[in-house]
């Protein structure tokens, strides 16, 4: 399959994880089971009970036949034997039930723990990580990769454990019965191990490929669903289907290829086991020929050899599940091993209520190395001011807004709040002082009230309403049949874009921050509504610092200070009037927006 530059494959290749040592993955998986060691120990003990019961039952039957039916011909004896057999079967079923409960139960608990760990890890990873990894691929790890482990644990593990136990028992019996013949049989064991190793190596790469391709399929799905409106608008449906078909087919082929390998493994072992049988017949037959072995013993040996390979066959039959689970675990651990956002520095203090002084001190920052977005940016904003950040698209305005809550760390220089470096305070306490209204409003599936109260989950309905009133969305919400309890979908359902911005805005207002950051928060809100918001905010935000990124003159004109950013540097700073007088970049930007403005001015000026 060709790797088109820029395709999801190319992205995945960019971030391809280092293959991990399989032994290490196994040890870690076993480590995950540690909290359940008691339950598992009980389970294993029960496996022994089950195996013993399984081994004893045939013996009881043979004894009943030999003694009660053929020997003593006693109906009572037969009755007792049958009663014993019934008891053995009952014990075995009870043990099996208890064993399933303890082992599968532990498996499920471990999986739930892994799922939780993965999620919590994702909460701690730096934002830059998510810029590089498609959401769909990350989801696929929690969904499909944990799923492979689930399949292995629920279908394979008990069988595997049982198989290993019976294997040990049979080995012992064979050695006791006839050591020489046993050792001859064991000459095949190294061949078997070698075969396993060869298959394991191939299966490993093959199954890794299946996990990667399923990640790509999920990533494509996720993008297809999120971008459905674009697809429809641009008549892309057929092309998207074709692209998905290619990914889907790649996943199918990877699976078929991988199972091709594991399907060959089990027959290979089968051939080996038959060779062992042949060896017993051949060599054992020769021994019997020379009267060194009784025929009865030879028959017993034959049964054991076949029994010996049965657990091996069982192991082989869950080989696919096992390999798949291994490959899945690698991807799970790849996330868990990512370095999380650096923890708060050891000396980090809790940031109390700030006055709101924001200082950028020679800040340099780049998302990608070698492409600085902010270059030596310095400014110092007095507390309580309304600050507007303006500049051309791509000048670095949103980046400034992202550095204050420490979404990213600066490459050099420092960002300070009230003179304190943001890296020296606890993140949680830092973000409690701030509220952000991002460019693209994001609403969670839930009620409008929940969305507004996202930053203050304990807020009363009155407080929620007050916040909604401040941003002028109360009237709209109150007009809905279910009001604040209206449930909206993850994309905001049928709210207009402007309305979603207002809900996000209300959320920030309710958070009652010392510093409010508005990143084009009202760009899709009409200017009349915006004017009302500004009035309401003016009283609400008195004494608090607010940082506003906007292009609309009506939004920025009231600012106490306007920072004009160009190519990651501060080029002008001052109030609206001063900057207009200066005739620099700001004046130019304003002029562009109000070209021909004087024509309307005559009419509008009295307002």
């Amino acid at each position, binding site marked *: 399959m060709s790797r088109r530059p*820029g395709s999801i494959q190319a992205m995945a290749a960019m971030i391809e994880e280092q293959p991990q040592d399989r032994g290490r993955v196994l040890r870690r998986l076993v480590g995950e089971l540690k909290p359940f060691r008691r339950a598992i120990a009980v389970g294993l003990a029960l496996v022994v009970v089950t195996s013993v019961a399984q081994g004893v*039952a045939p013996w009881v039957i043979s004894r009943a*036949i030999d003694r009660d039916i*053929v020997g003593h011909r006693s*109906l009572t004896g*037969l009755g007792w034997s049958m009663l014993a057999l019934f008891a053995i079967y009952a014990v075995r079923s009870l043990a099996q*039930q*208890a064993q*399933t409960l303890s082992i*599968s139960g532990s498996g*499920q608990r471990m999986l739930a723990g892994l799922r*939780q760990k993965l999620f*919590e890890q994702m*909460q701690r990873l730096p934002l830059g990580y998510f810029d590089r990894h498609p959401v*769909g691929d990350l*989801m696929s790890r929690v969904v499909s990769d944990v799923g492979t482990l689930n399949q292995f644990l*629920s279908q394979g593990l008990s069988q595997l454990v049982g198989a290993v136990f019976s294997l040990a028992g049979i080995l012992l019996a064979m050695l006791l019965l006839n050591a020489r013949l046993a050792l001859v049989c064991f000459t095949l064991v190294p061949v078997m191990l070698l075969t396993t190793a060869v298959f394991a190596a191939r299966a490993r790469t093959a199954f890794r490929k299946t996990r990667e391709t399923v990640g790509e399929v*999920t990533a494509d*799905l*996720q993008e297809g*669903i*999120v*971008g*459905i409106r*674009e697809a429809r*608008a641009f*008549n*892309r449906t057929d092309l*998207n289907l074709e692209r998905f078909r290619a990914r889907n087919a790649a996943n199918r082929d990877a699976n078929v290829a991988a199972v091709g390998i594991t*399907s*060959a493994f089990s027959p290979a072992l*089968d051939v080996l086991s038959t060779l062992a049988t042949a060896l017993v*017949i051949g060599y054992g*037959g020769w021994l019997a020929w020379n009267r060194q072995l009784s*025929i009865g013993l*030879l*028959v017993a040996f034959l049964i054991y050899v076949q029994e010996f390979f049965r657990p091996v066959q069982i192991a082989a039959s869950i080989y696919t599940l096992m390999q798949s689970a291994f490959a899945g675990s690698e991807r799970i651990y790849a996330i868990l091993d990512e370095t999380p956002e650096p923890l708060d520095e050891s000396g980090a203090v809790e940031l109390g209520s700030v006055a709101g002084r924001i200082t950028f001190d020679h800040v340099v920052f780049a998302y990608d190395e070698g492409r600085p977005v902010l270059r030596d940016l310095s400014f110092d904003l007095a507390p309580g001011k309304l600050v507007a950040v*303006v500049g051309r*698209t791509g000048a670095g305005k*949103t980046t400034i807004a992202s550095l204050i*809550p420490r979404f990213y760390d600066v490459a050099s220089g420092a960002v300070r709040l009230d003179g304190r470096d943001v890296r020296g305070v606890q993140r949680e306490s830092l*973000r409690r002082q701030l509220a952000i209204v991002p*460019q693209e409003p*994001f609403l969670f599936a839930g009620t409008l009230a929940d969305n507004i109260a996202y930053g203050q*989950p304990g807020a009363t309905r009155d407080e929620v309403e007050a916040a909604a009133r401040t941003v002028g969305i109360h009237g*709209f919400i109150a007009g*809905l*049949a279910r009001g604040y309890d209206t449930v909206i979908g993850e994309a905001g359902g*049928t709210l207009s874009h402007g309305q979603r*911005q207002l809900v996000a805005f209300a*959320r920030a207002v309710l958070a009652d921050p010392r510093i409010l950051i508005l990143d084009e928060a009202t*760009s*899709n809100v009409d200017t009349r*509504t915006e004017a009302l918001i500004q009035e309401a905010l003016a009283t609400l935000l008195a004494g608090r610092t607010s940082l506003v990124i906007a*292009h*609309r003159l009506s939004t920025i004109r009231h600012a106490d200070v306007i920072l004009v950013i160009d190519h990651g540097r501060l080029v002008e700073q001052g109030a609206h009037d001063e900057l207009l007088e200066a005739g620099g970049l700001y004046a130019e930007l304003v002029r562009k*927006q*109000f070209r021909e*403005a004087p024509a309307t*001015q005559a009419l509008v000026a009295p307002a």
Partner: protein
Amino acid sequence: MARKPGGVPGGGKALWRALGYLKRYRADAFGAVAALVLASAASLAAPQMIRLAIDGGLGKRRFHVVLVAVGGLVAIAIARGLLNFLRGYLAEKASQGVAFDLRGALYERIQRLSFSYYDQAQTGQLLTRLTNDVEQVRMFVGTGVIQLVAAIVMLVGAAALLVLLNPPLAVVALVAIAPIYLLIRAFVARVGPLFMRVQATLSKLFSVLQEDLQGLKVVRAFRGEAREAARYGRENEELLGLNLHLVTAISRNFPYVNFFANLGTLAVVGFGGYEILHQHLTLGELLAFNSYLAFLLMPVMTLGFIASLISRAGVSGVRVFELLDTPIELTDAPDAVPLPPLQGRVEFDDVRFRYAGAEKEILRGVSFTAAPGQTVALLGTTGSGKSTITNLIPRFYDVTGGAVRLDGFDVRQVTQASLRGQIGVVLQEALLFSGTVRDNIAYGRPAATLDEVREAARAAQAASFIEGLPQGYDTVVGERGVGLSGGQRQRIAIARALLTRPRLLILDDSTSAVDAQTEAALQAALDRLVKTMSCTAFVIAQRISTVRDADLILVLDDGRIAAQGRHEELLATSELYHEILSSQLRSGTKKNAA
């Protein structure tokens, strides 16, 4: 057995339907079943070889017979190995083929579902059905069905054989294992609903996950990490609880299936022993019967094991087909004609619209006519219905009253492909796809040359910043548009629309994040473009500079057109227009004029 798996309504039907997908792969599927049956037959032959070696060879002291038997054994092993390989490989091929088809069909359905479906649906829910549920169905089609068929064949065959061999013993054995039927039935009835809840909870869990990943910045900014983890943890706990219920149900099922199966052996030996004691049976007969009994019990135990697999697949099948059967609300009318090349006349005729599930009408009788080549600006308060109007032109939704006509054609009377192919839309949220900048611009016309892409980017005022990127047009941008500002993303989205050379252009507040200077340049470029291509343009914008030059300005208020006309006319006649302008121009213009 397969008629009522799942224990949920429709589970059996769903499984039959899933099996229908095997049709395309019937050669593989039959091959797999045949290989399984032949491999079992080969297994039956192996003991004969051993008996030959011992009885015919060693017993009669003819060593060459031993060698023949060994050779036969190896030959059988190789044949069986080959057959087993074929069984595994072919079954996987068939089941992966079915999964491929199912997923493809689901994706196609998803791509074609109407917008109103997406206003309600959650991405995580859809993703679960396409991945996890399809996988469950696949496992049934792959392993489950083949095991089931083989088990049933063996069961019937062994039962018939036993009845032939010794009818009284066979009846005793069958009666002893009969409770298994009840066990499995009760089990299926119990786990079916459980599996339904497991899949539903799984969906919820993944929705939380997907939402958290999508809204990452908001979560971090509002310190929601712990609460998200708790929300996720609640679903995870619930899932664990259900899974533990399942484990309990399973632990109460298969050990007792095994128990009753073993009881079959017990009954045969007990009753057989009794019969022998009463001289009705020989020991040899009992031993032979007993060894064949294993062929009856093995498939029974298999059934106990795959019962849960089948129940689960039934549940997933219902979920898969539910999505697959979701009606596509907006389909081409049977007599739909391709829309001829557009002149660009747009008519709204008393249009009414209400979003599905909403109680309020968003548009309440909107009528206007835009002449070809006109630029139409939409102005109005947030939520007044501006975006809705632009959504109705490419027929993203169907009107609930009135009609939308292009060049006199009702949009419902033309094919969607021909309609949308002539309309360029720039949506409010500039979504980029993972891929290069070039791929993103060429989204609507993947075959476009680099020169054409460049030209579109130039017109969208995006060329200069794109050329400044490390790999220019080949720079990979992620799904979040890494390192690109909101305004840059919007311009890429505009270039995307321009590249399709639309006859009708819709800009839905698509320059809100673009600075005034760039916007002015963009405006000029668009004006030129609109004039040279004489295409009709609909523009939603808040900024007056964008609106004032429009040929027709529609001032919307609460789903109605409050006023329409040119800038000068509206200034003179419309109070509302005046108000909107003044909210924007207050004080600013004074300074500007100075």
